[in-house]
């Protein structure tokens, strides 16, 4: 079972990575993550918003209300400079972890 720290880490990485391409509201953000990971990562409302609010408090992302073309008000999240700064080391750490796990798996099969 994947521990909560790892889960949280991957979820935060996913959100920051997707927001790198531009601001998105919560539903669209969850949909984009699901699409880009071929359904491997899925966020329900209950998982997504507490995390977004937490990341907002940490000032990695910022949410602002915007009105879309169809007149709907949505809270759009965008990456802050602090979030951009957080993203690079996070990506490096996860890449290192996956490489290490791959090496371990190869060694086990060798």
């Amino acid at each position, binding site marked *: 079972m994947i521990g909560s720290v790892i889960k949280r880490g991957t979820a935060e990485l996913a959100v920051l990575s997707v927001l790198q391409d531009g601001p998105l509201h*919560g539903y669209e953000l969850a949909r984009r993550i699901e699409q880009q990971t071929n359904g491997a990562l899925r966020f329900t*409302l*209950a998982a997504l*918003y507490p995390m977004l609010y937490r990341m907002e408090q940490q000032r990695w992302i910022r949410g602002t209300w915007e009105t879309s073309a169809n007149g709907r*008000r949505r*809270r759009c999240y965008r990456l802050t400079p602090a979030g951009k700064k957080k993203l690079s080391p996070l990506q490096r750490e996860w890449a290192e972890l996956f490489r290490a796990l791959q090496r371990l798996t190869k060694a086990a099969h060798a």
Partner: protein
Amino acid sequence: MPDWQKLVREHLSGLGLDDTDREEVHAELAAHLEESYEALLVEGVPEPEAVRRTLAQVADWKELQLKIHFARIRKDMMTNRVTQLWLPGLLTFALSTGLEALVQKFGPRPIVLDLDKGTPVLMFYTSWLLMLPLAGALGAYLSKRAGGSVRMVLASSIFPVLPFGVVFLIAIPVGLVINHNLAHHIVTAAYLSMSVGWVIAPGAALLAGGLLVQLFLSHRQASRGVASH
């Protein structure tokens, strides 16, 4: 189509945030549910099933409420603690220390408490003690102005003696238990007189100032409240 706003509002009515924040959360979550539901309909999912799947995104509303509450108030708690306790407390500490230094340099001679054989253990700067209510009042005022509770206001006013209080309450008794070489009656007398000199007397002086400000500001607030009704 279900009224998503109403549904979220009902489930998250106990969200412990201010009205604006709570309304924002309700609106945002309702918009998410609405969009999920509409996307399912577009995919051709029948309406009852779309409703069921949309609602299945939240297994436990109480748990979600709690998670959102803690995620959103974290910063406020930190900010409040800084402005209501640490900042006023540290300013009180700086003022009381500055006053002590001034009194030591320019003030009248202190009252010296000694034990047997005339060993001085404590110097009482009465003029400093008389000035301390001012420092306590300043800490209390700053904390109160930042919206501090009575506990925060009073803690800010006695902040300068808290470190000494901790040392005297914990470190010295523990030291006494560990170290048996010193004569206990001397150490106990020293401990008591130092506690009075470093914690109890200045603490009481600071608290007096803090209490006066707390009472004055609470009274003023109450009068304003009555006047505005």
